[in-house]
């Protein structure tokens, strides 16, 4: 078998982040023209970030169901409270530029 | 075979040399900045070829900072020169 990790653990991390994100009132999907919207929703950044962070923790040597659960919970809290301050929406910059000219 | 001659060290050296020639030969400042970005790629490649990986990480992070400082200087000096030219033409008209 070429695949090394157990796929089931990734599903646990994804589901934990998804459910806690919905409990924290993140919207399920972004606003309707999806490819232009900037909202942080439960599916797009949160689930992807949860799987990616669990992959990082897995490579660092901590493996198991409980680690996956904790990673999902921390990712949901991170994307609810910190992510908007870490990567702000650059709309202000564009408006300032257009008004500047 | 000549293909033995192509490895990471010689590629990075060729990239850095081409970037140097471009910086010296091209006249306009923004062309010089583009060739400087090319030289940075060769520089990081040379460090990686010697396997100093931590130095390569630091060099890769600090590259765009140097480029952005150069670009801010170019934009500012261009505005100053444009203002200077306009005021000179006004003086000629008066």
């Amino acid at each position, binding site marked *: 078998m070429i695949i090394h990790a157990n796929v089931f653990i990734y599903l646990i991390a994804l589901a934990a982040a998804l459910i806690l994100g919905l409990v924290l009132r993140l919207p399920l999907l972004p606003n309707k023209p999806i490819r232009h919207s900037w909202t942080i929703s439960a599916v797009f950044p949160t689930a992807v970030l949860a799987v990616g962070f669990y992959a990082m923790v897995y*490579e660092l040597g901590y493996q198991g169901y409980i680690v996956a659960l904790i990673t999902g919970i921390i990712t949901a809290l991170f994307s609810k409270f910190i992510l908007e301050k870490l990567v702000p929406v650059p709309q202000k910059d564009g408006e300032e530029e257009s008004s500047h000219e | 075979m000549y*293909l033995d001659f*192509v*490895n*990471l060290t*010689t*590629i990075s050296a*060729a*990239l850095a040399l*081409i*970037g140097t*020639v*471009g910086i010296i030969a091209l*006249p*306009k*400042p*923004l*062309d010089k*900045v*583009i*060739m400087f*970005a*090319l030289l*940075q*790629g060769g520089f*990081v*490649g040379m460090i*990686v*070829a010697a*396997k100093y*990986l931590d130095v*390569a*990480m630091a060099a*890769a*992070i600090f*590259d*765009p900072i140097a*480029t*952005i400082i150069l*670009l801010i200087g*170019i*934009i500012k000096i*261009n505005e100053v*020169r*444009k203002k200077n*030219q306009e005021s000179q033409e006004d003086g000629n008209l008066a």
Partner: protein
Amino acid sequence: MLIEILGIIVVLMALRTLVAQNRSERLLYLNVIGFSMSAIIGLYIQTPFGAIIAITFFVTSTLSSNAIAYSLGRVKEEIMVK
């Protein structure tokens, strides 16, 4: 075999960058060089830290390309001092 193909692509694109006429054409060739240099770094260092270095190098070179393209629109024509 793999690094040789990428190396020939890199040197060819560097020469085309040097002799190109238009300035935004130069930027497109520079993008190809960013892609292939990070591919060579990933192929040469076959450890996880090599992959992290390749990803960091690619993202930072894209950032500097972004800054150059923005100031290309800002500076329409440069005024040179004779």
